[in-house]
């Protein structure tokens, strides 16, 4: 499929679609930001890998906006620390320091802010990172939605893992692993919004994955690529990957872990779990000979208990992700095109 049309060129205004994490977001980055800031040929990874006095440093930033700010399984503060810690960790680095900035809406309860900051501090302790600088701005009511948080972080690379960001070691036959069921975060947040008349027990998977990732990295196995699976879902991450390595990807859909409750709501709303956002999930590409052992190592970590091999890199259908459906058919799995909308019937 040729993505000839760039959605930014086509649109005069920013729509919510540009923040969906899918095709429109990618277009926005390429068309506006890379053109001004970057190298058009660089692989866009979760962190920049910098060389400072011949030490490799991973450097990244992320802003967090979420409605509601408190949801089952977490809050915006936990999200803000875990998100940046994970971006650093999947680059092969050990997260060390964070900075944070707050934009607060007039009227926000001090007690809510305390809760949010406490959960940031709690996660920072868990992730063994220090929050070392910060900034606060307050805006008039209605100019932001309660609280927006930015975190920026650096981590150190003990070895030269820069290939993990670029995927340059990936070959035909490599296996794809995820660390557990997909879509919990999206569904938990959707349920907490009270717009839908459903109650769900599903908790966000929001978690810092630095330990899980260090466990596999230090086991001496052949880890070739890692990405955290956030907005846009697994489908979008895999499509980016197939483009980067110029190979095909084949998924075995019945192996992809999705909770029954999440699946049920997806059926009702017409969502595809492969496109739902996660906040504590990582996708790994590993050498086929090491795949089973890596899964066993991951299962020993609390955030990897349901790790599974879900697919492989293939030389067929280059730049394309194909799913073997649960009934034995085949289908193409594309990048997320726009925020998933509930269907009519």
């Amino acid at each position, binding site marked *: 499929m040729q993505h000839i049309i760039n959605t930014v060129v086509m649109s005069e205004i920013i729509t*919510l679609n540009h923040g969906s994490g899918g095709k429109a977001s990618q277009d926005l980055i390429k068309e506006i930001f890379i053109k001004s800031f970057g190298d058009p040929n660089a692989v866009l990874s979760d962190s920049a890998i910098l060389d400072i006095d011949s030490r490799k440093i991973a450097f990244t930033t992320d802003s967090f906006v979420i409605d509601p700010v408190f949801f089952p399984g977490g809050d915006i503060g936990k999200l803000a620390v875990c998100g940046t810690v994970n971006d650093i960790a999947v680059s092969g680095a050990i997260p060390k320091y964070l900075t944070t900035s707050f934009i607060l809406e007039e009227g926000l309860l001090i007690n809510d802010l305390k809760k949010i900051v406490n959960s940031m501090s709690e996660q920072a302790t868990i992730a063994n990172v220090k929050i070392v600088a910060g900034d606060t701005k307050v805006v008039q009511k209605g100019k932001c939605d309660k609280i927006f948080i930015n975190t920026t972080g650096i981590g150190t690379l003990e070895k030269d893992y820069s290939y993990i960001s670029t995927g340059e070691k990936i070959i035909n036959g490599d296996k794809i692993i995820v660390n557990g069921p997909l879509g919990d975060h999206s569904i938990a947040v959707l349920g907490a919004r009270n717009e839908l008349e459903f109650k769900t027990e599903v908790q966000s998977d929001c978690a810092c994955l630095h330990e899980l990732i260090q466990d596999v990295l230090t086991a001496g196995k052949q880890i070739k690529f890692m990405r955290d699976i956030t907005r846009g879902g697994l489908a979008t991450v895999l499509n980016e990957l197939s483009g980067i390595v110029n190979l095909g990807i084949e998924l075995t859909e019945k192996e992809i872990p999705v909770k029954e409750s999440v699946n049920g709501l997806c059926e009702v709303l017409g969502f595809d779990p492969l496109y739902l956002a996660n906040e504590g999930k990582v996708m790994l590409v590993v050498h086929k000979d090491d795949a089973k052992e890596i899964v066993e190592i991951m299962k020993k970590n609390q955030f990897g208990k349901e790790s599974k091999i879900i697919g492989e890199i293939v030389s067929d259908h280059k730049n394309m992700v194909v799913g073997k459906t*649960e009934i034995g058919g085949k289908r193409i799995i594309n990048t997320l095109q726009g925020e998933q909308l509930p*269907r009519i019937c």
Partner: protein
Amino acid sequence: MKYIEEYRNAELVQKISEKLKVYDNLDISLMEVCGGHTMAIHRFGIPSLLPKGIKLISGPGCPVCVSSINFIDKAIACSALKEVVIATYGDLIRVPGSKSSLEKEKSKGADVRIVYSTLEALNIAKTNQDKKVVFLGIGFETTAPASAVAIQKAYKEGVSNFYLLSAHKIMPPVMEALLNDDVKIDGFICPGHVSTITGSSIYDFIPEKYKIACVVTGFEPTDLMQSIELLTNQIANDNQKVEIQYSRAVTKSGNTKAQAIMNEVFETRNDFWRGIGEIPDSGLKLREKYKDFNAELVFDIQIESKRENPACICGDILRGIKTPKECKLFGKTCTPINPVGACMVSSEGSCAAYYKYSSYE
């Protein structure tokens, strides 16, 4: 998942797929006229399990796709009126009108809210007395009763700030229009949800008058495969009739209570189908009794409609004459984010389903 897994039995699907191989030398076209079927067919990769001789074509079954450009323009015009809140099912917001879409208007500040039910829309009206809430009524016999219930409730409770802009349509007239057209259809995969309400008897005229096979079908892979087998058998044995594969939900007479509510609130009118044209008695409008809830009568909606992009072949796609891949715009200037034609907009639209799931060959 309970109640679903049994209908996604790979072994059973493979068995039917094997059996169908004997029909490789046939040349038959089966049309699904429900967007839910189009989605399921592509999501599960059903075409990759069928012999070459059995072709699946997608008909005008996506309510979003067949809504006329006028309807979208009217909705957009309403959204620009003072104090108006547009309440709509999600799929509709990205549909392109002549110049804009509800999504774009929302980005510019229009009050457009996605709802999941008509009663939720009614609730917005009740809790925002200073606003005028216009619900965009879209869909076939499946969603029309839900709109009817909301209107009855608003009438009974004297809610005076709730309105319906109706694009509701009914299925049988468009199926007949296709049969009178030059479309090659040997059998219909009849809609499951529509039939839950209407019953299967609404299709009786199809085998009787046109000798075309009909099977009312569920939405899971085994449902679809079984229906394709039933249809193929009917055609191969020259025994065209209406069968109900989806018997766990559909009866011959349907949900008579829902039918009665729908009839009490709506009457038929000639309606325009995007890409197909006007079809007599194929749309639903509010009866005289409910005229105060009819957005078209209450608001002064001025629109100037433009022709659709001449290169767009949505009409031929909706009639099953062409497939999305035959369209020059498909995947190039027309993608789900920048849809040119309506079939690309809804996740149930043929083009969107092809784009997203396009069966791997």
